[in-house]
């Protein structure tokens, strides 16, 4: 879980934040209410980007010879009988 802190808090309590990072806590730094940066313990790796996470999916898609109907849309159409009564 990531804790949000403001840039002002980070400035004023840098030592405390670093102590909490050392204990494994992660922070998202907000400036003017907008997320600006992530702070994670030094031993943690940075999250991979989508192309890295999805490498096998992208490869499988190139091999796919057919497609399947999206099951969520299929289920919603089947279940949503009230709208069909109109």
């Amino acid at each position: 879980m990531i804790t949000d802190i403001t840039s002002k808090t980070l400035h004023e309590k840098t030592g405390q934040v670093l102590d909490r990072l050392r204990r494994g806590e992660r922070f998202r730094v907000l400036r003017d209410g907008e997320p600006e940066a992530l702070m994670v313990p030094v031993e943690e790796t940075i999250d991979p980007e989508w192309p890295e996470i999805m490498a096998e999916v992208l490869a499988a898609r190139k091999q796919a010879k057919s497609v399947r109907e999206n099951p969520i849309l299929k289920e919603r159409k089947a279940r949503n009988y009230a709208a069909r009564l109109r």
Partner: protein
Amino acid sequence: MPLVYADTSALFAFFHPRDEFSQVVTDAVLQSAPDFVYWSFLRYELRHNLRQSRTDSDGEVAWKALRAGERTHARLRWQTDLRAESVIEAADELSAQSALASKAGSADFLHVAAARRLHLLSGLDEFWTCDAEQGALASAAGLKVRRFELKTPPRASRR
């Protein structure tokens, strides 16, 4: 990174290589590199459908990619503000306002209520869906919507 609420239809299409919307959703992800909102109902609905697709190698690949995404902190960004009970309450309020004007189903209202709450609390860049009714509901709720449509009819078998 933009923060996007992709509903389950869009996230399933992203993870499953043979979904009919797979290509268009992937193109959008590669173009804008978003982080996705993740919370308990969305996780449950996505996992459930991906579990049921684990009948072949494509389903296994999709499941493995989802689990890799879940191990990140940012790509699937867990939202502590979205607690199931309060989102259900918000969906009920949204239903009271819009049920007759919309053909969207009950799960659609949950997703839109969750996205609207996040939008009001901390800002949300876009709402992504493959579902026309849900897209219309999200748009009426004030969200910026990207609805995915099939560019060409699906190839060969649909099952």
